[in-house]
């Protein structure tokens, strides 16, 4: 409280305060041609109001926040009228504090406290070193980032940057809801009853250190992380009389060593990212995840194409939800074309090397006037049930969204 009062005092003491804000209201409807084993719904509509104010009381201080109010037709959003500031529940909160941070900078020093977004890495579709960026995976392939609670200290000098992050409170990724199509259950499991015993969230803080160099023609960084994976493993036990499967989400310890680089070549920019995931948790695999991608802009086209791979160093066969590893051993691509100043079309694809899973997405965006934007898209998912992408083969969908920005 004293710190907050002091910050407010500092803020009020300065006369040249500036305030800015931005936000939008968006409605989004997703249409699924097929039903799923555990979900007969074919249409999901959502509404989201987001407001992002920022206040600069003096040249050194910035207060930034982001507030969400949302609802939907598919109970991915809580019906409870409460205000959430933690983003740790299974459903999306109806009213939430998405970001609230205070930043101080002086010279090359930049310090930010509070709930904030931290993005590490250079690649576009998969980021193995992006360890402070949990996501909302309720609809696995259309996901959004969640902020983390903590402190970030960055010192930048002459193209070298040291970035230290500590998060005392763990934020997990939001995983698909058990009674919905993005938690695909095999048909054989229809007789089982799954009982959610909740999540065992880690209590200890997480730390990360990144050194990056941005000067010169190429960029690179090295990363160390000690904490927990934001994607869960499932611990389950079968209770025979009722064929109940009781499961708990646990978040394995993670120590990660990684790096990324961006090297401009005559025709392309080569971007690469790799990380070695080690863990003391006895049920967690240890593995190396890497991405190599080429990027090029030609006229109105932007092309990104690459490959993501995985090498398991210690296999323990965990049961978990791992979209990052699910996109490994796959060819990834993205292309976007600007049709006019107000219209773009984009294509994204992930094709597993084995051919067992394919995800293709196309999206057309049209802006109207200063404030309106509409998006129409279609996502095709195909594959075999045993594959990470293939298991969502009944979840191909069309998307319509309208956004009013202010």
């Amino acid at each position, binding site marked *: 409280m004293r710190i907050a009062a002091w910050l407010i005092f500092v803020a009020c003491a300065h006369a040249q305060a500036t305030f800015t804000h931005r936000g939008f209201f968006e409605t989004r409807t997703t249409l699924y041609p097929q039903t799923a084993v555990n979900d007969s719904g074919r249409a999901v509509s959502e509404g989201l109001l987001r407001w992002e104010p920022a206040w600069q009381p003096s040249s050194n201080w910035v207060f930034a926040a982001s507030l969400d109010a949302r609802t939907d037709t598919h109970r991915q959003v809580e019906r409870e009228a409460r205000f959430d500031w933690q983003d740790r529940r299974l459903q999306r909160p109806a009213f939430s504090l998405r970001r609230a941070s205070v930043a101080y900078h002086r010279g090359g020093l930049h310090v930010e406290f509070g709930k904030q977004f931290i993005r590490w890495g250079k690649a576009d579709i998969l980021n193995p070193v992006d360890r402070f960026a949990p996501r909302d995976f309720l609809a696995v392939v259309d996901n959004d980032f969640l902020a983390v609670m903590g402190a970030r200290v960055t010192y930048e000098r002459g193209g070298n940057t040291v970035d230290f992050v500590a998060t005392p409170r763990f934020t997990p990724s939001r995983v698909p809801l058990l009674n919905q199509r993005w938690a695909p259950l095999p048909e054989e499991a229809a007789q089982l009853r799954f009982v959610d015993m909740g999540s065992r969230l880690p209590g200890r803080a997480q730390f990360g250190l990144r050194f990056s160099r941005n*000067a010169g023609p190429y960029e690179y960084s090295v990363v160390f992380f000690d904490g927990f994976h934001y994607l869960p493993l499932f611990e389950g036990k079968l209770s025979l009389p009722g064929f109940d499967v009781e499961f708990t989400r646990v978040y394995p310890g993670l120590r990660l060593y990684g790096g990324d680089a961006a090297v*401009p070549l005559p025709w392309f920019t080569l971007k690469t990212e790799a990380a070695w995931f080690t863990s003391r948790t006895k049920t967690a695999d240890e593995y190396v995840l890497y991405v190599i991608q080429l990027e090029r802009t030609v006229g109105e086209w932007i092309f990104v194409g690459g490959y993501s791979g995985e090498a398991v160093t210690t296999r323990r066969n965990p049961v978990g939800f791992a979209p990052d590893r699910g996109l490994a051993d796959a060819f990834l691509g993205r292309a976007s074309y600007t049709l006019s100043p107000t219209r773009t079309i984009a294509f994204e694809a992930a094709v597993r090397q084995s051919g067992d899973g394919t995800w293709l997405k196309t999206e057309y965006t049209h802006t109207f006037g200063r404030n309106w934007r509409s998006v129409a898209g279609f996502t095709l998912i195909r594959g075999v049930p045993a594959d990470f992408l293939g298991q969502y083969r009944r979840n191909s969908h069309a998307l319509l969204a309208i956004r009013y920005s202010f």
Partner: protein
Amino acid sequence: MAQDPRQIIEEVQRRNRSQSQRYEGTLTVTSAKSRVAEKRWRFERIGSFGDSKSVLRFIDPPEVKGVALLIHNHKDRSSDQWMWTPELQRDRRIALQDRSTRFFGTDFSFEDLEERDVDQFDFKLLGEEKLEGEDCWKLESRPRQTKTSQYTHSYVWVRKDLFLFMMVEGYKGGELMRRIAYRDYQNVKGLWTAKTMEVFDNKRNSRTTMKLEKLDYNLPMKDGDFTLQALRRPL
């Protein structure tokens, strides 16, 4: 003195030298099919020719508000550029081979937004011409080896009385790529500045007109506001 093309450009730069600059630009983009889009950005620069740093941040329309470009200009080579997209919370370095693409739906390419320092080009005086009633020198500039450019050469018209750029045409081989015309010169704090710039993209047949407002020079600015960390700030 004025017959030496390099000295002409040096004099243009000397007369335009300032420690910092700030303006708000309103950009009207008109496509070949007469579709019009309007954008607005705030531009801040610290330092002067050869070693300046600038940040350009969109302030309107709301859809792109917060998108920012950081440019570190160098005396001996092409600039370094990074773009910040608030929706992704990521910065992305703009590779040299991608600098010929248009900047965020405007007719400026990324390269057009960097500084054209005298040391990065070789100049040739082609003659004298009248442009919009003003006596001008017409010069040809060719990028030196250390400078990566989409243009094989450019023609530059410099107003003789005030040493001001009137027009720049960028060519690739024999083909005109872009034409930038400078208009509405006004004296702000002793510096003559074009308050209207019109960029014509010959390939797309589209044009962007930028009008400068709230223009000011030699304001106190900090080096720390022109870093990658500063780019992340919402203000």
